């Protein structure tokens, strides 16, 4: 299960970060997390994969994860040890994919506007509370929609379906 409290540095990006930026298609002849990880954000920020540390947080603007349905995108982010993505809003396929594979995501437009790259963040995932320790600001993200709690409670879509199949 995901840790309730997590902390790390912010990597701040703009609006419309697309899945080709998150993981270019030229690397999609694999879906192994460790093979995807070194190419994450390669065309948008070549320093990301080599410098990101376990616990770090991606902070972005609107429509994060737009474009292709490739689940390789949240997989590549998660495989780099990113503890959470905070965005003003998400493209719907990325949103489903992140939940399905257990990458924590929070929706919070105010955080994206106020957090700077490199800020130290502390995040209470269950409460949706984001603390920027560098500038002292605190943000409340929208809680996950109620209907997803069944999938959360099972620990992702795979165990959720496994339970459903066992019930049948």
């Amino acid at each position: 299960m995901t840790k309730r409290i997590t902390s790390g540095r912010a990597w701040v990006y703009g609006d419309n970060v697309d899945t080709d930026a998150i993981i270019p298609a030229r690397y999609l002849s694999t879906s192994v997390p460790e093979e995807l990880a070194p190419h994450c954000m390669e065309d948008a920020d070549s320093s990301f994969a080599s410098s990101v540390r376990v616990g770090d947080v991606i902070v972005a603007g609107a429509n994060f994860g737009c474009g292709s349905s490739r689940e390789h995108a949240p997989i590549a982010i998660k495989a780099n040890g990113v503890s959470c993505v905070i965005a003003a809003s998400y493209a719907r396929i990325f949103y489903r994919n992140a939940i399905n594979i257990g990458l924590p995501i929070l929706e919070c437009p105010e955080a994206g506007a106020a957090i700077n790259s490199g800020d130290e963040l502390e995040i209470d995932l269950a409460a949706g509370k984001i603390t920027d320790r560098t500038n002292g600001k605190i943000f409340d993200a929208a809680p996950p929609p109620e209907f997803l709690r069944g999938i959360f409670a099972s620990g992702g879509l795979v165990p959720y379906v496994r339970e459903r199949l066992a019930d049948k």
Partner: protein
Amino acid sequence: MPRTMAEAIIASHTKDAVSPGSVCQVRVDFAFANDITGPPAVEEFKKMGARRVFDPERCAIIIDHFTPNKDIASAEQAKRARAFAREQGLKFWEVGRLGVEHAFIPETGNALPGEIVLGADSHTCTYGALGALGTGMGQTDIAAVWALGETWLRTPETIKVALRGRPSEWISGKDLIIHLIGMIGVEGARYMSLEFHGEAVAEFSMDDRFTISNMAIEAGAKCGIFVPDEKTLAYAAARKSRDFTPIYPDRDAKYFRTAEIDAGAVEPTVALPHLPGNARTARECSSLEIDQVFIGSCTNGRASDIETAADILRGRKVHDRVRLMVIPASYEVYNEALDRGWIKIFAEAGASVCTPTCGPCMGGHLGILAEGERCVSTSNRNFVGRMGHKNSEIILASPKVAAASALTGRVTDPRDIG
């Protein structure tokens, strides 16, 4: 309660209450993945403890992205997809007999009016052209659908797109959808359904409608649906792989908002790098020199797209500086291009004609761009690095603009080539 297309289709597939924002457990009519998303979907399917897909006639894997296998890794992916398809008896076609999924699935009658069709590929929204609710998901979601035959959908709000007037002969579905995305923005329909109405709809062929629905996701939409008319029903009836029941919106359905477009005023339109909403008229961009032109993809690789490009290129030569790649989106299209002499026209013009594949659209293979190169492409996305080097550029355009640009070596309005 009166319903939009999306609401009515969801209501016909669920026992849950349907209204915008409501989450419904829906029955799924057809669910598929491709050679990139299929193999990991198979892994997730096994991890779920599933043994058989819910109905092999309603599940498929289409190997189209990196096929014919571009390297050993992609050959292994196709091999894993093929093995699972054989094991489960689900629908599977070999290279030489299929095509780019969103051209091939409608051709084979595997997406039909009134249905819910889900694919592990974002351009699954293409089937809105048939009056179906088609939408893309990730591979784990599709694995779950294969296991259960159902999934959850959030009922989308609907934007009514009223297409007024009469488009000129130079305007295709591509010009119209780029124009619309330019109007409402790349997240202007995020999580929503686009529903196309208006007298101009009748002027657009099924191929044009597929193009329009295909790019609904480039405005963030979950789906982009046309109300079935005579053209839809004739297309579906001639190709259906199972029975279907068309669904229509209620006259007094409630829409989130209405966007009006005078189709008669739309000009040949392109999208400049690096967003599909970066719309300009082709004439505004006529100073931009280009290195490559790609005509094909799930957006614009259908018969009328290839025909219109052949008409412009007939008896002419591709510009010395330019390489033109033409990739019919399926073997049905490829064979028609052979029969009707279009491939000969391309060959004589100095173009390269390739076997059906997604190929260069997402930088897979066959026509990757080098640093600093610029390509006019009939595909759907012009994101940074999408077709190759991160410092290459993609300009999205209709087949007419693409063919005209291949002749002149710069972005060209087809009305300007004489």
